[in-house]
């Protein structure tokens, strides 16, 4: 039971740990409560803040929320856009959560995502025109993973070799990698008058709209299947493989894992490479499925939002998928409500949700522990 409980974020692991619930009905119930309560609390707080913001603009909250739902899940185009945005967020959310399971805070998903998208576009530009899709698409997908993994490996190696804190290294790398990509695209590869490369010659992925007319106009494409497969694969890796078990052990107690014979440094490097690869894969949604070229700054914060997705999804692959859909709904919904309230409202709500989950996780844990100690349940 305790293995399926959500792991603690790294800083919290430095705090005194509550005793793990004993296996059994009660342990499972409290583990579930510990996992699900913080996102619910956060949602409630976000709703209240949202109401206040809407009221300051002199609109009716009910009207705005109705518009938000209608503009997202209420019609095929809106739904398509939600699926499109969720695809990237599933990848970046998985990238952050895999790091967290290993006790590493990967703030670098933004630049890993950009590097993945860039590598995919370069692969698509290098391939000969007319390369069969069955070869070209997997090659471009592999390139995206490799691009992200290369960026992710750096903080992993620096932490394992020199003890450099991965949070600072990934933040600094974001600036370095994005500046580098900006330079190489602007100075060497851009189509004149633009900040994007030429269109790839092979490796594009069809949109959902190509076979389901209702999605017409939306950017949703079949790379979402890769995202779902990646979520399944991450679950399988973490829960069903020896390497995944080691990764989780390192995340919970690096010293104990080391004592148990795990090479902690190696696990860190591997975890950051996998995390980078996952974030890099996010690039295929935009590059293979939508634009068919690499555009400077296409990431637009999706890497940072991955942190929110991992947090709200409580670091579980299924949770990450659901949280990605939630944040994608918010961000698409912002456009739907723009007529009444500025779309910037959803950015405020995103921040509120993250803050509320972060503050309620330790609080919920404490309350549950107290009530268990009192024998209330």
């Amino acid at each position: 039971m305790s293995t399926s409980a959500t792991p603690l974020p790294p800083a919290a692991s430095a705090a005194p740990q509550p005793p793990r619930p004993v296996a059994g009905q009660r342990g499972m119930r409290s583990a579930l409560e510990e996992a699900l309560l913080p996102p619910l609390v956060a949602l409630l707080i976000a709703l209240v803040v949202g109401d206040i913001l809407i009221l300051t603009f002199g609109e009716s909250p009910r009207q705005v929320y109705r518009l938000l739902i209608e503009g997202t899940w209420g019609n095929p185009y809106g739904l398509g856009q939600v699926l499109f945005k969720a695809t990237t967020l599933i990848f970046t959310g998985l990238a952050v959560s895999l790091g967290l399971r290993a006790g590493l805070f990967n703030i670098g998903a933004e630049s890993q995502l950009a590097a993945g998208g860039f590598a995919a576009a370069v692969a698509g530009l290098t391939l000969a025109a007319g390369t069969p899709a069955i070869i070209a698409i997997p090659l471009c997908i592999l390139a995206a993973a490799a691009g992200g993994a290369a960026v992710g490996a750096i903080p992993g190696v620096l932490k394992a070799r020199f003890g450099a804190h991965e949070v600072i290294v990934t933040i600094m790398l974001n600036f370095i990698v994005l500046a580098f990509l900006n330079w190489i695209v602007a100075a060497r590869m851009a189509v004149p008058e633009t900040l994007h490369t030429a269109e790839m010659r092979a490796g594009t992925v069809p949109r959902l709209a190509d076979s389901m007319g209702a999605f017409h106009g939306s950017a949703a494409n079949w790379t979402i299947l890769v995202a779902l497969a990646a979520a399944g694969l991450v679950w399988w890796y973490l829960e069903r493989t020896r390497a995944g078990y080691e990764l989780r052990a390192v995340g919970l107690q690096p010293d104990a894992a080391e004592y148990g014979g795990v090479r902690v440094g190696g696990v860190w490097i591997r975890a950051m490479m996998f995390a980078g690869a996952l974030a890099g894969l996010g690039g295929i949604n935009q590059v293979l499925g939508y634009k068919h070229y690499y555009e400077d700054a296409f990431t637009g914060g999706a890497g940072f939002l991955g942190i929110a997705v991992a947090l709200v999804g409580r670091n579980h692959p299924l949770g990450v998928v659901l949280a990605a859909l939630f944040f994608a709904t918010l961000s698409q919904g912002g456009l739907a409500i723009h007529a009444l309230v500025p779309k910037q409202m959803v950015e405020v709500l995103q921040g509120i949700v993250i803050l509320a989950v972060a503050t309620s996780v330790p609080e919920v844990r404490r309350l549950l522990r107290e009530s268990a100690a009192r024998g209330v349940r």
Partner: protein
Amino acid sequence: MIVLAFLIQTLRISIPYLFAASGGVIAERAGVVSLTLEGFMLTGAFTATLGAYYSGDPWVGVLCGVAGGLLAGTLHAIASIRYRADQIVVGIAVNLLAVGITRFFLRLFFESSSNSPRIPGFAGEETSGLFAPFADPLVWLGLLAIPAVAFLIGRTPFGLRVRAVGEHPEAATTVGVNVPRVRYAAVILSGVLASLGGVYLALDQHQFTDQMTAGRGFIALAAIIFGRWDPARAGIACLLFAAAESLQIQLQTVQAIPSQFVSMIPYVLTIVALAGVVGRAVPPAALGKAD
């Protein structure tokens, strides 16, 4: 003449860094992670713009900017200290919130998604020329911030407590220091100081623009780490990073090095410092730990 212009430009560019880094040093030395500097600056820039716009007086702008920093700092402090939330997550949330809130209220107050109307600043139209920046009292304040914080941390009882709760909170508690209270004070003070960096930007450019801090809070954080959490060294790092930018601006016509590579300098140096190639950067022992 060119050298003088270069030096003065370096000073100008360094002011926001100096404010933010001096604030960040206090919070980090008290054991609270300062990823929030960017958000503090942005909040300060926006509230200062509101104050200066509606009053027509830059000093009211400064006061409002400080109030904004105070609020943002308090939010960070409550989440990190009272609720023991993960400080890195809180930092990211506060930064996101600052971007979202300033954008939202930019729409509400000024009906724009990019910038505010023109606001009064300290350097008026008529003061131009090489030494114009020195007409701005915030420049002087910014230059004083680092020495003041160095004195505060190194020579005062409060500074001793800050260092104690950042290195060994348990020991500090044993000798009667109220750890949460010292951390609250440190974080809120960091909010106020960092926000002044944003205030300077807004008043200097005579307007608020969306995301006008443009990563300066992270450059300040880089300076803190590169300066190994020592205020004086962090200040020197700020000047160094500003000099690199200033040099790049001076060399713009020559096109010697792409600007992107110059902008990487602070971040590359920080990673190098963290990796310990030129002397190890060791953070305060209790940095990021809830209690």
